[in-house]
C-alpha cells in the first residue's frame, strides 16, 4: 500500500541529512584551536622537568579560552590558540605557543588587558585568518605589525614617560610630528591648516576609508600610512603632501600617527605620569605649523608640487620691508589665492598670543636699520611710462605680461593686494637671498619716479590677459 516513490525519496533524503548532520557535528567538534591546544598540552607533558610540572600539564583542560573585559564589553579569545602566552616554559617555542616577549605582561596582565587593546585583530574570532583580520575577512582592524606596536602604548601613557620607559619609538615619532610642520596642513583637535585631511581618529579608521589601490603588500591602514609617508604621490597620485622621512624614520612617524584613535580607554586603564604642557615658544610653534612649506625661511624656493614660489619669510631684506602689523595681518587672514592658510583662532585655530610668538620668532633677524620709507603718493605716476620701463627692466624675469618665469608671477592676488609702498621698496632695495636685484642702487639706474611708474603699471597687470 505504500508509495515506493515517496519512501525511496524519504530514505535517500534521510541518508543525506544524516550524513550532513554527522559532518557538521564532526567539524563543530574539531575546530582549529583545539589542535593548537593539544599541541601545547603535549609539548608541556613531554618536556616536563619534574613530576609536579607534568601533573599540572596533564590537568590542562582543552576548551575555548576567553578574557572578558567587563569595562569594555570586549571578549578576547586569542589565548585559545596562544595558550602559552604567559608560560615561561614556552619562551622559545614556535608560534602560536610562544611566551610573550619582554616583561610587558608583568605590568599588563593578560587577565586585565586581553590582547587586542595593544595588538588589534579580531579577538572574537576562533581561527587564524579571521582573528588576525587578514584581507577579505571583513574586519576593519587587522593585527598590528610589531614595528608599530608602540602606538598602542600611547592609548594610556604620556610621551614623556614612554620616552624613558620602553616607548622610545612612538615618543620619537611624536617629536618628528612636532618638528616637521605636519599641522601646517593637517588639523588635529581643531588646530592646523586645511590643505590636508584632519588627522583625528585616523589610527582607528576603517580600511575602506583609505584609497588602497596603490598600496604594496597587505591592504592595511598600517601599510597605507607608512607607504604614504615614504612617497605620498605613489599612494595618492594627486597628493600635494610633502614628505620628509623615509625608511625607519617614517616607521616611527607611522607609529605615532596610529595613536590618533577615536576610542577612549576606560579610566582604570590610563596611567599618565607626567603632565607635559605642549611647548608654545615661537620656535616650537614655527616648527609645528610653518616649517613644512617655509623650511628655514632663508631663501625663497619654487615648489614643484604647489606650483608656486614660497617666500623666504625669515630673509632679513623681506623683514626689513615688512612690519609686524603687516605680518600679523598675513598670518591671521592668510593669502587668498595661495596655499597660505588663515591662522586666526576661528580658522586654523591659533590664538592671538601664539601668532605673536611666531612673528617674534620669524622677525628675530630683522635688521636694526629701518628701511628708508618710500612715499609713492608723492609721485604722479605714469602707467604708460611704467609699462615701457617694465618691458625693459623687469620682463626678462617676470615675463612680458608679468606672468612670472624666474621671478614671481606679479599678477597673483598677493602682489596685487600689496601696499604700493611695499612694492616700491622691494624694487628699490631688491630682495637679498633671491635673484631680485636692488634697482634703486646707484649705477643700476632707476630713479624714484621710474619706480613709482613701474609700481603703478604692475598694479594694472591683473586686468591684462596673457
Amino acid at each position: 500500500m505504500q508509495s515506493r516513490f515517496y519512501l525511496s525519496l524519504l530514505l535517500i533524503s534521510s541518508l543525506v541529512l544524516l550524513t550532513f548532520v554527522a559532518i557538521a557535528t564532526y567539524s563543530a567538534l574539531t575546530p582549529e584551536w583545539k589542535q593548537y591546544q593539544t599541541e601545547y598540552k603535549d609539548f608541556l607533558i613531554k618536556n616536563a622537568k619534574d613530576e609536579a610540572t607534568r601533573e599540572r600539564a596533564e590537568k590542562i583542560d582543552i576548551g575555548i579560552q576567553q578574557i572578558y573585559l567587563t569595562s569594555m564589553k570586549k571578549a578576547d579569545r586569542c589565548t585559545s590558540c596562544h595558550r602559552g602566552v604567559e608560560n615561561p616554559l614556552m619562551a622559545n617555542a614556535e608560534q602560536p605557543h610562544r611566551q610573550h616577549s619582554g616583561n610587558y605582561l608583568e605590568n599588563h596582565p593578560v587577565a586585565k588587558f586581553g590582547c587586542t587593546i595593544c595588538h588589534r585583530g579580531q579577538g572574537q574570532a576562533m581561527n587564524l585568518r579571521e582573528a588576525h583580520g587578514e584581507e577579505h575577512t571583513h574586519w576593519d582592524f587587522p593585527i598590528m605589525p610589531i614595528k608599530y606596536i608602540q602606538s598602542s602604548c600611547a592609548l594610556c601613557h604620556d610621551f614623556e614617560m614612554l620616552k624613558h620607559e620602553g616607548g622610545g619609538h612612538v615618543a620619537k615619532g611624536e617629536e618628528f610630528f612636532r618638528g616637521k610642520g605636519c599641522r601646517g596642513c593637517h588639523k588635529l583637535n581643531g588646530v592646523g591648516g586645511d590643505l590636508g585631511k584632519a588627522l583625528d581618529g585616523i589610527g582607528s579608521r576603517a580600511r575602506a576609508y583609505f584609497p588602497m589601490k596603490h598600496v604594496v603588500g597587505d591592504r592595511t591602514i598600517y601599510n597605507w600610512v607608512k607607504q604614504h609617508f615614504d612617497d605620498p604621490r605613489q599612494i595618492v597620485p594627486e597628493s600635494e603632501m610633502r614628505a620628509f622621512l623615509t625608511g625607519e624614520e617614517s616607521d616611527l612617524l607611522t607609529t605615532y600617527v596610529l595613536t590618533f584613535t577615536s576610542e577612549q580607554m576606560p579610566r582604570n586603564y590610563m596611567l599618565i605620569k607626567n603632565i607635559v604642557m605642549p611647548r608654545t615658544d615661537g620656535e616650537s610653534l614655527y616648527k609645528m605649523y610653518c616649517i613644512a612649506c617655509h623650511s628655514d625661511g632663508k631663501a625663497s624656493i619654487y615648489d614643484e608640487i604647489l606650483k608656486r614660489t614660497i617666500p623666504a619669510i625669515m630673509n632679513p631684506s623681506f623683514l626689513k620691508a615688512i612690519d609686524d602689523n603687516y605680518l600679523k595681518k598675513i598670518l591671521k587672514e592668510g593669502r587668498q589665492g595661495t596655499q597660505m592658510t588663515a591662522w586666526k583662532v576661528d580658522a586654523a585655530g591659533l590664538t592671538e598670543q601664539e601668532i605673536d610668538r611666531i612673528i617674534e620668532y620669524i622677525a628675530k633677524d630683522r635688521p636694526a636699520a629701518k628701511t628708508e620709507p618710500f612715499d609713492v603718493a608723492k609721485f604722479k605716476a605714469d602707467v604708460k611710462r611704467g609699462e615701457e620701463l617694465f618691458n625693459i627692466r623687469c620682463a626678462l624675469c617676470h615675463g612680458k605680461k608679468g606672468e612670472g618665469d624666474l621671478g614671481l608671477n606679479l599678477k597673483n592676488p598677493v602682489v596685487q593686494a600689496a601696499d604700493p609702498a611695499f612694492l616700491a621698496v622691494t624694487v628699490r632695495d631688491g630682495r637679498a637671498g633671491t635673484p631680485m636685484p636692488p634697482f634703486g642702487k646707484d649705477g643700476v639706474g632707476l630713479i624714484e619716479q621710474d619706480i613709482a611708474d613701474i609700481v603703478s603699471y604692475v598694479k594694472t597687470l591683473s586686468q591684462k590677459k596673457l
Partner: protein
Amino acid sequence: MSNGNRNEEGVSRRDFLGLAAFGAAILASLGALAGSLRFVKSNVYSEESKKFKIGKIENFPIGTTRSIDGKSVFIFSDDNGLFAISAVCTHLGCIVYPTEAGFQCPCHGSKYNQDGKVIGGPAPRPLEWFEISQEVDGTLFVDAGKAVPNGTKYIFA
C-alpha cells in the same frame, strides 16, 4: 506502516523500505535536534573568567585574611596552608561578610563558622572551598569554578 500486510509478494520488501526510510528519518531528525539543543548551551559567557591570579606565595604570610576585589572569595593563610573560601551564601546567593565567629549573610541571617560550616540560619550547605593552584612560574591562582572538599589547604613552596 504495519498496515499493508496483505498476502502479496514483495510486501516484506516494501515493509523493509518503509522501516529503513522512517528509521533513517527519525535518526537524522534526532541528530539535528540534538545538535540544535547543544546550540542553546553557551560555550562562552560574557563575564570575567572564574580563574584569577592572586600573586605569589610571599604575599600571603601565615595569618593573612584577604578578600579579593570583585571576586567574592576570601583567601586565608594559616599553619596548615593556604585556602580559599567562597563568599557566596549557599542559601540564595547573597554575599557573606566576615565576623568574629566566621561569616554572616545579610539576606536571611545564615551564619557560618571560620571554616564555612553552617552554625545558624537557613543555609543548607557549608560555604564552598575553591582550588588554589600554581602556574609554572609560581604565581598562584584561584579557580572559583572548581570546588574542593572543605578543609583542603594548600602548601606551596
